[in-house]
């Protein structure tokens, strides 16, 4: 799985986490009290720090604000060109909730479940980047199946499931399992062709 960028970013985070107990320092705003609230920000792999006393932090409304979030990271990921919002894509709008692809690029969050269908083109490569896969293999809601069949979406076929599994075992270098899966896929595909 290609997750190089994530790893780099996370390494930076880890380094932050490792910074041991700090020497006593004074608040960077008032310069009087001891700094007890520490913020760390990662922007383009550059770490910047802010050390404040509790009073000043509260005045700035910072004391309870996290300094780093997945959504920020994701926005970075999109802006860094992993999924460049193509010009024709940027204007695509979700019919259900009105969010545009450009807006999604800006806030890093989708507007509703229907956005997934609307922004497919840009989302699929992004999902692959994040998860290393684009085929759900976990549980299905019991109620969801009924709703979905109305929408004419098919659950993955046996072949598709085997293919997803194949991708996974190859990634984990379990080649014996991969070979047996490949044979199963071939057999199934032959059978399907005959039936046609």
């Amino acid at each position, binding site marked *: 799985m290609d997750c190089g960028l994530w790893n780099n970013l*996370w390494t930076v985070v880890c380094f932050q986490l490792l910074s041991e107990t700090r020497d006593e320092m004074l608040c960077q705003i008032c310069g009087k009290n001891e700094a007890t609230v520490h913020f760390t920000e990662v922007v383009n792999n550059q770490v910047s720090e802010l050390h404040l006393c509790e009073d000043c932090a509260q005045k700035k409304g910072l004391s309870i604000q996290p300094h780093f979030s997945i959504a920020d990271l994701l926005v970075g990921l999109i802006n860094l060109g992993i999924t460049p919002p193509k010009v024709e894509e940027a204007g695509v709008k979700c019919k259900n909730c009105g969010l545009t692809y450009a807006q999604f690029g800006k806030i890093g969050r989708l507007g509703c479940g229907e956005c997934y269908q609307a922004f497919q083109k840009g989302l699929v490569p992004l*999902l692959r980047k994040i998860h290393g896969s684009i085929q*759900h293999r976990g*549980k299905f809601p019991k109620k969801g199946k009924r709703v979905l069949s109305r929408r004419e979406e098919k659950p993955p076929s046996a072949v598709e499931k085997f293919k997803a599994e194949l991708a996974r075992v190859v990634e984990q270098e379990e080649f014996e399992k991969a070979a047996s899966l490949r044979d199963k896929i071939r057999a199934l595909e032959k059978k399907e062709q005959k039936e046609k």
Partner: protein
Amino acid sequence: MKFEDLINKSGEWLKGEGAYSEVVISSRIRLARNISKIPFPHWAKKTNRERILSLIQAAAVKCPSLKRGLFIRLDQLSLLDRQFLAERHLISHEQIRDNKERAVIIGEKEIAGVMINEEDHLRLQIIFSGLELQEAWRISNKIDGELEKNLDYAFSPKWGYLTACPTNTGTGLRASVLMHLPALAVSRDINRLLQAVAKLGLAVRGLYGEGTQATGNYFQISNQICLGRTEEELIENIDRVIKQIIEYEQNAKKVVLNKSRSEIHDKVFRALGILKNARLITSQETIGLLSTIRLGLALGIISEKEVERRKINELFIITQPAHLQKMGKKELNPMERDEKRALLIREKLAHI
């Protein structure tokens, strides 16, 4: 159960029991779910967020595992009460400020919790003490099943559960384990270890989740990948890595004890000395010293008959600002809090 009763008890996840509780504080499973077609909370209008609140509350009332829980609207709580809930890990830090049309359901013994209108419409979390991911998954799967009978989840057979942030798409499952790794931190191997963990597709964070720093050598390890694997595979993967880290930590403890026996003894008893005698203490210092006491417990320098692990785990939570103020029933400035905190710790450790 009433809101004001929470202060007198502590969550089940702090009890210091369960598998590997020496190293693992707690195991948490979180499932992110959304209602089909309705915009996600950040993009929804007030009326839609209200609709979500009533839909989910109605479903929870019919759900055997949640119906006896406490349903609380966050916009009806004071800032202090919201801080109090965040310190107990029952709501996220974002929700302290962002509280309009948001709610939380707190199950018995604080094992199950539901956040409504946080990043997603519904976030179910199950927390257990010790390394108990499988059990936490079993319970969350059961509650999820009960809820889905009365809710239409946004779901696609291709992409799974559809969430506001594409990092949660698929299973919507985040398994996270809160670990205490003081020996590895002393030996400095932790740097390499955490880098390796990140390469395995797992994320490392501080005590209060996303965006917080690892004070007191507490680390939260969780999966980053949610799509393309079954829930069981995701949990097995993280469980395997956690068990390996536990082994490293236990080895590091032996090494530390062999190499620097007197330094470690000194450090532990000094920590105890400060905690038993301080008249003013900040929460940062408290967390550091309690972490050292926990190391002393793990190494057998202090016996568990003298200090229960549960008591130390609880002190981490009840010495935090909002807890101190709730207990004192009034607002306190930072200096008053440091005084109250020192007093509380002295009382709790008086018998040693």
